[in-house]
């Protein structure tokens, strides 16, 4: 199959007949549900841009498995240039959607598993890597979306997976059969899961002996028997049900998270990529996290571009664009945003070729990247709110603006500069509201904090790779630590001696 069009993607998603629950009800026509469709539009944009020659350099890559052009989201990185183009592609999509577009997590999962399965085989004599290569080619040939499912509910965080009161707190193998395994458990906070053709499961933490049933990685169709989804709520999400585009802020696009439940799901052996090899679970978690922390140096920057643009327009519409403090705030927002992009590129250009032949981004710099992402979008959002003014949270509804009697009043009192229609001023303010405290803030703020691992997870990785002993030696050498102390050579400065 050639690259899918957005329309083909959406039809293929509808054909899966996923079991998605929202507000306690099974959603039948989920691709047209007003609360879900904006997130599908985001995913469809990853197909749309791949159709255009002007975006091909970022959106497409040449498969090392087949030599064919494939969507970069299904590609195994073959160079540092591939790593950098990945980040640039993510910035582009953030700009086009002003939202989380959800397809990154599967790309990061396949790239992490590619090297880890190779290394398991080298050490254990298994054939996981060959299975996985076939699977990657299947994704590429059919231009599929895969969800990378890592985060378990985790229960009591002080206990190992096998020590939990409820053994299902971490997804695990409940039965090993001649033809495959049966798994049970759940994966939480799954971005884009309901928009995916495939689910790729990975362990969520480094497993220890005793956790063998939990050290499991596999893939399965998103509509496999036993799988269902409980859709996550977002701030102001029911505004999408009001059928007034204005008050949503970003009416066409949005993010998506869901809880995936695996209720005794059968997985054939050819789709199993780790089963009991606890000693490799840590490497898989670290590499996936590294790729996903790199991703945030692209996607959040693209959304940041939209927010900075909105803030600049708000200032323009308010008639204060030339005020020096406004210009300085926009400079600061840009400085912060480009700093994130710099981190995303830096960890790409310092990437290495792994024993499996694919490229992994630099883990220290990827963690530094994500650590900054846990902070800078909050400051960018604060500055955007500062520039926007209080109207973004006090303005009347779209219905008031459309009302025969109230509409002219709203027009009269909420106009800014005379050459800008009031409706456009309100649209921009609603977009800033969406990204800073509304449904879009789920992706731009809290996802920046906790997605791809919470801040402390990055600090642990940074500490592990900080090479502090080398820094100590540098300081000792400069300060001449250890040099014999000869007091006879200590003289008072001439000025003091006088």
């Amino acid at each position, binding site marked *: 199959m050639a690259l899918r069009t957005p329309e083909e993607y959406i039809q293929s998603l509808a054909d899966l007949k996923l079991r998605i629950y929202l507000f306690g009800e099974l959603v039948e026509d989920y691709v047209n549900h007003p609360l879900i469709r904006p997130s599908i539009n985001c995913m469809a944009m990853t197909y749309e841009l791949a159709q255009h020659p002007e975006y091909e350099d970022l959106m497409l890559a040449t498969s*090392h498995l087949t030599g064919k052009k494939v969507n970069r989201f299904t590609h195994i990185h*073959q*160079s*540092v240039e591939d790593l950098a183009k990945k980040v640039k592609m993510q910035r582009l999509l953030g700009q086009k959607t002003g939202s989380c577009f959800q397809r990154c997590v599967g790309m990061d999962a396949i790239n992490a598993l590619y090297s880890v399965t*190779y*290394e398991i085989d080298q050490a254990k004599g298994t054939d996981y890597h060959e299975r996985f290569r076939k699977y990657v080619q299947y994704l590429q040939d059919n231009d599929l979306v895969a969800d990378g499912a890592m985060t378990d509910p985790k229960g009591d965080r002080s206990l190992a997976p096998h020590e939990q009161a409820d053994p299902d707190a971490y997804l695990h193998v409940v039965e090993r059969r001649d033809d495959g395994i049966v798994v049970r458990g759940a994966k939480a906070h799954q971005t884009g899961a309901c928009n995916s053709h495939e689910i790729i499961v990975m362990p969520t933490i480094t497993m220890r002996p005793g956790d063998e049933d939990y050290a499991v990685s596999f893939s399965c169709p998103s509509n496999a028997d036993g799988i269902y989804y409980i859709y996550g709520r977002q701030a102001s999400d029911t505004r999408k049900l009001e059928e007034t585009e204005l008050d949503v802020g970003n009416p066409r696009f949005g993010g998506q998270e869901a809880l995936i439940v695996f209720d005794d799901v059968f997985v054939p052996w050819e789709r199993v990529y780790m089963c009991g090899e606890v000693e490799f679970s840590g490497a898989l978690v670290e590499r996936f996290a590294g790729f996903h922390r790199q991703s945030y140096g692209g996607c959040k920057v693209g959304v940041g571009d939209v927010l900075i643009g909105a803030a600049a327009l708000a200032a323009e519409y308010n008639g204060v664009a030339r005020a020096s403090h406004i210009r300085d705030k926009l400079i600061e927002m840009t400085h912060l945003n480009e700093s994130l992009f710099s981190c995303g590129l830096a960890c790409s250009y*310092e*990437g*290495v*070729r*792994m*024993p*499996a*032949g*694919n*490229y992994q981004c*630099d*883990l220290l710099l990827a963690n530094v990247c994500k650590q900054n992402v846990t902070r800078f979008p909050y400051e960018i959002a604060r500055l955007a709110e500062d520039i926007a003014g209080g109207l973004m949270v006090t303005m009347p509804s779209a219905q008031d603006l459309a009302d025969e009697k109230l509409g002219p009043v709203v027009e009269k009192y909420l106009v800014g500069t005379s050459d800008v229609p009031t409706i456009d001023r309100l649209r921009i303010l609603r977009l800033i509201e969406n990204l800073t405290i509304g449904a879009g803030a789920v992706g731009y703020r809290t996802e920046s904090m906790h997605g791809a691992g919470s801040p402390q997870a990055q600090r642990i990785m940074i500490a592990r790779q900080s*090479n502090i002993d*080398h820094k100590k030696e540098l300081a000792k050498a400069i300060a001449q630590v250890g040099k014999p102390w000869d007091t006879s050579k200590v003289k008072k400065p001439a000025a003091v001696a006088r």
Partner: protein
Amino acid sequence: MTGTGTGRPGAPRLAVVYCGGCNPQIDRAAVAAALPADDPGVRPGAVVYLSGCPRACASGHALTPAGPDEGGEGPAPGAGEAPQVVVAGTLVDGQPVAPDEVAAAVTRKLKE
């Protein structure tokens, strides 16, 4: 790759290619000095790419001499030829070893 040299003067059997040494996690000079430069068990023309950290600058950002999917930026495959070993901090051909075991691990690779 930012520098080249031999482990010791007068030891052409084994070449050591150094990174620039901006962030070393190992003492590269000490590792090079402990390599079997004069050992007849090492095939002449052997190369050790010796980087101080996992960024592997000496080997063009490759953790192994050759992967199953050839290409990329690393050193060329050396199958059937003099051995090539990549050191990147405490990784030897991509496998983690203890810091004080790096030279011994490389030596074993050179004699395989």
